[in-house]
């Protein structure tokens, strides 16, 4: 039995279904992300784990204990909110100490644990400040320290990095990962940022319209998307409709890979290459944009536009207006059979 188990969870607000038929097991110490567009039910799921929202149906168990009868304040979970929700009228140290006070921890121990927690997030000397005197990144760390200091059974992170700018977000991702590994706290992260989910998680739960689309390791979910939704939501992807021929699957008459039945081929832009020999899909470069560490090309093919990403590694890249031939390795592509809806 997993450490945190969600069984057949459903949440409906009147006729609107926010979450439906959700089954999820989280192992102890695992870092799991709920990833999906806004309105996919990921935040509702988090709220149900936290106890702020009651599931319409289904059971949530933590370490074999049914959570549904436990009030939110008795669940002992650490939560970092998107807005941080720091107590503006308390100092940073008082914010972090709050949860310990609720647990009637002794004064001396509180002081010691608050110090430790603040040191862990790199704010050892900022305990006397008020939240408003701190930057967004610092407030984020306070929120994290406040959630972790109570040694929660589970750490719930609700879009914790979405209010930070891009550079800071990347730094905090690394730090968050490090802190989580160090403390070994089981963590559930809710995010709409695929990059964040890929960078942080042991496993990713991709959600869409209240349903789970796919659960898997970041590498699996990215490389072997289980549905067209996952393929397009996680990174960019090219799709071609392919017909079987005697020599394999062909796009617009050009054989691209083996296969016997009509299918849709999905291929990541960075997996498409230019070839000078053999079979491939002919095309013409419409635009070429330099993006620092890579080039982004739009290639017009007989089966629509194809996005190609080439690393800036010194090899020549075709210019705008040039004709090219596109090819990819069969194992990089994923197939969904025509007629079946993912």
């Amino acid at each position, binding site marked *: 039995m997993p450490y945190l188990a969600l069984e057949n969870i459903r949440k409906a607000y009147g006729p609107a279904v926010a979450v439906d038929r959700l089954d999820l097991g989280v192992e102890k110490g695992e870092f799991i992300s709920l990833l999906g567009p806004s309105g996919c039910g990921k935040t509702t799921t988090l709220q149900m784990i936290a106890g702020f929202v009651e599931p319409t149906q289904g059971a949530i168990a933590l370490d074999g204990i049914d959570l549904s009868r436990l009030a939110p304040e008795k669940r002992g979970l650490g939560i970092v909110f998107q807005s941080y929700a720091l107590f503006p009228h308390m100092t940073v140290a008082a914010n972090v100490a709050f949860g310990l006070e609720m647990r009637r921890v002794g004064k001396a121990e509180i002081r010691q644990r608050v110090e430790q927690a603040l040191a862990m997030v790199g704010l050892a000397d900022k305990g006397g400040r008020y939240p*408003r005197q701190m930057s967004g990144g610092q407030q984020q760390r306070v929120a994290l320290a406040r959630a972790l200091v109570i040694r929660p059974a589970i750490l719930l992170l609700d879009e914790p990095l979405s209010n930070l700018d891009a550079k800071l977000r990347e730094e905090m991702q690394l730090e968050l990962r490090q802190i989580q590994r160090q403390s070994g706290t089981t963590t559930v992260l809710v995010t709409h940022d695929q990059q964040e989910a890929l960078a942080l998680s042991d496993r990713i739960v991709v959600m869409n319209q209240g349903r789970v689309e796919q659960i898997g390791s970041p590498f699996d979910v990215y490389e072997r998307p289980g549905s067209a939704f996952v393929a397009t939501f996680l990174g960019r992807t090219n799709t071609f409709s392919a017909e079987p021929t005697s020599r394999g699957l062909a796009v617009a008459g050009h054989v691209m890979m083996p296969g016997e039945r009509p299918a849709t081929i999905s291929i990541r832009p960075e997996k498409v290459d230019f070839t000078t020999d053999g079979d491939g899909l002919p095309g013409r470069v419409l635009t070429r944009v330099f993006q620092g560490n890579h080039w982004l090309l739009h290639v017009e093919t007989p089966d629509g536009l194809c996005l190609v990403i080439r690393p800036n590694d010194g090899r020549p890249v075709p210019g705008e207006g040039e004709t090219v031939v596109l090819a990819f390795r069969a194992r990089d592509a994923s197939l969904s059979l025509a007629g079946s809806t993912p």
Partner: protein
Amino acid sequence: MRNGPLAVVFHAVFVVFLLAPMVLVCLVAFTPEGFLSIPTTRFSLRWFERVAQYPDFIAAFRTSLFVATAASLIAVLFAVPAALAIARYRFTGREALNAFFMAPLMIPHLVLGIAFLRFYSLLGISGTMAGLIIGHVVVVFPFAMRMVLAAATGMDKRIEDAATALGADRITTYRRIVIPLIIPGMASGFALAFIQSFDEVTMTVFIASATTTTLPVRMFTYIQDSIDPLICAVSALLILFTVLAMLVIDRFYGLQRLFIGEDKS
């Protein structure tokens, strides 16, 4: 964009229009003469000395302070739970109740005065201090309510969730988080209510008795008899008192902002 010369002239005239009557009252209060006149060569404090010897105004001022304090306190005490409910709970009749609480703003004070006069005479509490305070509670309640409600709605609901998640029960959450966070709203609600109550004339004229007359009502009845430098001196003192109160409130708000900070979410 900058204001053109025409706009500056308009603004100057507007400001003069706004300030002229009050400035004039204050000037006349310093007249050395026994009649209404603007002092030109000599300023005198004789009329202010007369005010000090006039127990009516002093007593009315005390009544005003007492009524305004009591009514504003009561209004804030009733407003806090109501505002919390309206800001944070979804229940049937919520919208209607909110409008109901704001209704005294819509009802002319004259009508309220008449209604209370009739009500109190039937209850047999005409002219009592209690009646006066209750009337003022009604008049100032919307102001107290509005400020407390603004504070309660402005509060991030997640802050409470955060306290709950950290193990705080409902009472602790109220005591340690919710109430401290709406205290600035309560304070500004009290201040606004106090000012409204202190300035109220129309309703009070109907329900105040000789022993419970407030300062504005005493001034009003005095003016109806005669306009002399004495009433100008009383008004000047009242204006001074108001300006001081304004400065204090401004200062106080500034401090509060410093303490609470701007909500960035």
